[in-house]
C-alpha cells in the first residue's frame, strides 16, 4: 500500500486526529494567551517582576516536553489534563515575553498624554497600551502556535488526542508495512495544520491591528 492509498483508506481516522490536534492546540493557545498577557500586564512595569516572568517561562521551555508529560502523568493522570497543562505552559514564553516587550515599548509620551487627558489606569491599558502592544503580542501568539503544533504530537505519549497517535503508532511498529505511512501522515498533517493556523493569524492580524499602526 503506497502513501496515497493509505491516506484514502484511513482518511476518516486521520481527519478526526487532525481535528483533535487542531482543537487541542487552539484551546491551549487561547488559555496561554489569556494567562500570558495577564502575566505581561501585571509584571511589565517593574524591572525585576518582568525579568522574573520571562526567566520562569523560559525555564519551562528548557524542560524536554516528553519529560514534562511523563512527570505530569502521576500527578494528573493520563489523557487530556497533562496535554493541556504542558501545551499551555510551553505556549507561555513567547507570549509573555512579547507582551512585556510590547507594553514596555509603548512611547512614554503617549502614556503621558493618556494620563494627561484623564484616562484612568485600566482605561489607559485597554484603550492605549494593549492596542499598541498588540502587534508584537500577536507575533508571540504565532510563534507559540507553531511550537505547540509540534509539542502536541508528544501528547499521544500520555494517551492525549491528536496526530501524535499516528506517529507513535508508526514508530512502535517500525518494519511493518504501514509504519512509514503512519509516521509520514502524522508529520505532514501537523505541517499542514501549522500552515493553516499561520494563514489564519495573518487574517486575524489584518482584522485586529488598526490601520494607523499597520506596517
Amino acid at each position, binding site marked *: 500500500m503506497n502513501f496515497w492509498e493509505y491516506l484514502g483508506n484511513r482518511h476518516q481516522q486521520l481527519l478526526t486526529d487532525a481535528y483533535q490536534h487542531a482543537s487541542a492546540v487552539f484551546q491551549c493557545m487561547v488559555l496561554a494567551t489569556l494567562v500570558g498577557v495577564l502575566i505581561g500586564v501585571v509584571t511589565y512595569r517593574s524591572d525585576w517582576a518582568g525579568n522574573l516572568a520571562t526567566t520562569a517561562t523560559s525555564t519551562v521551555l528548557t524542560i524536554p516536553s516528553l519529560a514534562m508529560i511523563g512527570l505530569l502523568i502521576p500527578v494528573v493522570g493520563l489523557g487530556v489534563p497533562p496535554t493541556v497543562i504542558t501545551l499551555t505552559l510551553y505556549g507561555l514564553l513567547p507570549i509573555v515575553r512579547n507582551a512585556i516587550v510590547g507594553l514596555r515599548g509603548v512611547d512614554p*509620551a*503617549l502614556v*503621558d*498624554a*493618556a*494620563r*494627561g*487627558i*484623564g*484616562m*484612568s489606569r485600566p*482605561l489607559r491599558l485597554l*484603550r*492605549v497600551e494593549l*492596542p*499598541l502592544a498588540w502587534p508584537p503580542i500577536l507575533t508571540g501568539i504565532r510563534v507559540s502556535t507553531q511550537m505547540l503544533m509540534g509539542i502536541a504530537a508528544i501528547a499521544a505519549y500520555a494517551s492525549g488526542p491528536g496526530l501524535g497517535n499516528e506517529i507513535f503508532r508508526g514508530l512502535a511498529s517500525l518494519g511493518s508495512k504501514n509504519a512509514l505511512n503512519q509516521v509520514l501522515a502524522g508529520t505532514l498533517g501537523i505541517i499542514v495544520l501549522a500552515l493553516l493556523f499561520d494563514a489564519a493569524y495573518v487574517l486575524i492580524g489584518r482584522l485586529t491591528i*488598526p*490601520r*494607523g*499602526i499597520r506596517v
Partner: protein
Amino acid sequence: MSETSAAKGHDGRESHGAAIELENLTKRYPGSQQPAVDNVSMEIKAGETVIFVGPSGCGKSTTLKMINRLIEPTGGRIRINGEDVTDIDPVKLRRKVGYAIQSAGLFPHMTVAQNIALVPKMIGWPKARIRARVEELLDLVGLDPGEFHGRYPRQLSGGQQQRVGVARALAADPPVLLMDEPFGAVDPITRDHLQDELIRLQHELHKTIVFVTHDFDEAIKLGDRIAVLRERSHIAQFDTPEAILTNPADDFVSGFVGAGAALKRLNLTRVRDVEMRDYPTVTVDTPLQQIFGVIRGRGMNEILLLDKRRRPYKWLRRGDLMRARGSLARAGTLVHDTVTRDATLRDALEAVLTDNAGRVAVTGRRGEYIGVVDMETLMNSVHELLEADRLEAMEAQHELEEARTQQTHLEQEGPGGVTKA
C-alpha cells in the same frame, strides 16, 4: 479666595477661563537634596495666557505638570477657580484641564476623530453631541472635517498633528489649557502658523492657558504675561512681555531676553494699533479723467489703484499713466505684498524694507484696502512705544522700590500685628 467662575478676562471681555493659584508649590524627588521645584507661588487670572519660560532643566515643565498633577507635588496647594484640587481624584481633575504636548501625542491606532472624541466619551457625552463637537473642533483648528475626520495621525503632517492635539485638548471645553512645549518639534514656518492660530483661537475662546517654552520669542508673541523661571522654578520675573523687554528685573532675565529688545518689541504691536496713512485711491472702474484729477489734485506723488473688490492692485505714480498712453492695464507697478491689520509691526517692517518704494498696503479681512504703512509711520510709532514703555517701567520700578522700603521698614519694626498680605 473664591473667584467667580465667569470672571472678567484680562481684556475686559467675558472669560471662559478659570483662575489658577499656586501656593508654595514644591516638588522634591526622593534621594535628591535640592527640590526640583521650590516654593512656587503665582496667581494666574482667568482667561489669561501665561508663559513659563526658562533654560532647560529649570523645572518649568515640572511646575506645569503639577497643575494637573501628572507630577504629584510634595508640598503646597493648587487652586483652580478657588477650588482646592490638590487632593481631589487626579483623573477627574485632568478631564477638566486640557493638556497638549510636544509632537501632539496623538494615539496612532485611533483616527483623528477618535482621538478628539476621547475625553467627551469618557465624561459620557451622547454620541450625536460628540460627533458634532468633533466637527466643530476640526473646523476651529482649521482642518476640513470631511477630509481629516477618518485619517490616522501618521497620515498627517507635523503641523496638522499639532492642530489635532490642540483640538483634543479642547474637546470637552475645559476652562484651563496646559501646553507643554507644544510647538517644539515642528519647523519654524509651521510653528509661526500654529502660534498665529493659537492667538486667533484664544481671541475666540478666552481660556486660561499655561504654556511652557524655552523660546523667548515664542513667549513674547503668545503671552499676556511671562514668568521667567530660573533653576528650581524660582520666578525671576513675572510680568507683561513689554515690561520684561524694557525693564528686565536682573541680569538673568536680560540674558534670557537676549539682544535686540527693541526689535522684539515690534512683535508686540499690531498694525491696527499704529496710525496708518491714508492714500488717495481710485478703482479700476474710475473714469480716466477722474484719475488724472486725483493724481493732480492731491499733493501725493502716488496713488493706489484698487480692483473691483477694493483690494490693492497697483501703485500709480505721477506720469505712469502718461507713459502707458492712458492704458490702466499697462500703467503702474503691481502690488506685491500686503499686510493685514493683525500683522505685527515686525512683519510690516519686513514688508516695508523689501518693498522698493518703502511702503506697504494694509488690508482687512477680505483683502480690502484699509491704509498704508511706510517707514516714517513705523519709526514714529516705535519711538512712541519705546518712550511709553520706558515711562511705565520707571513708574513700576518706583512703586517696587517704595514697596520694598515699606517692607524693610516693617521687618525692622517687627511683625507686630502684621499678618501676611
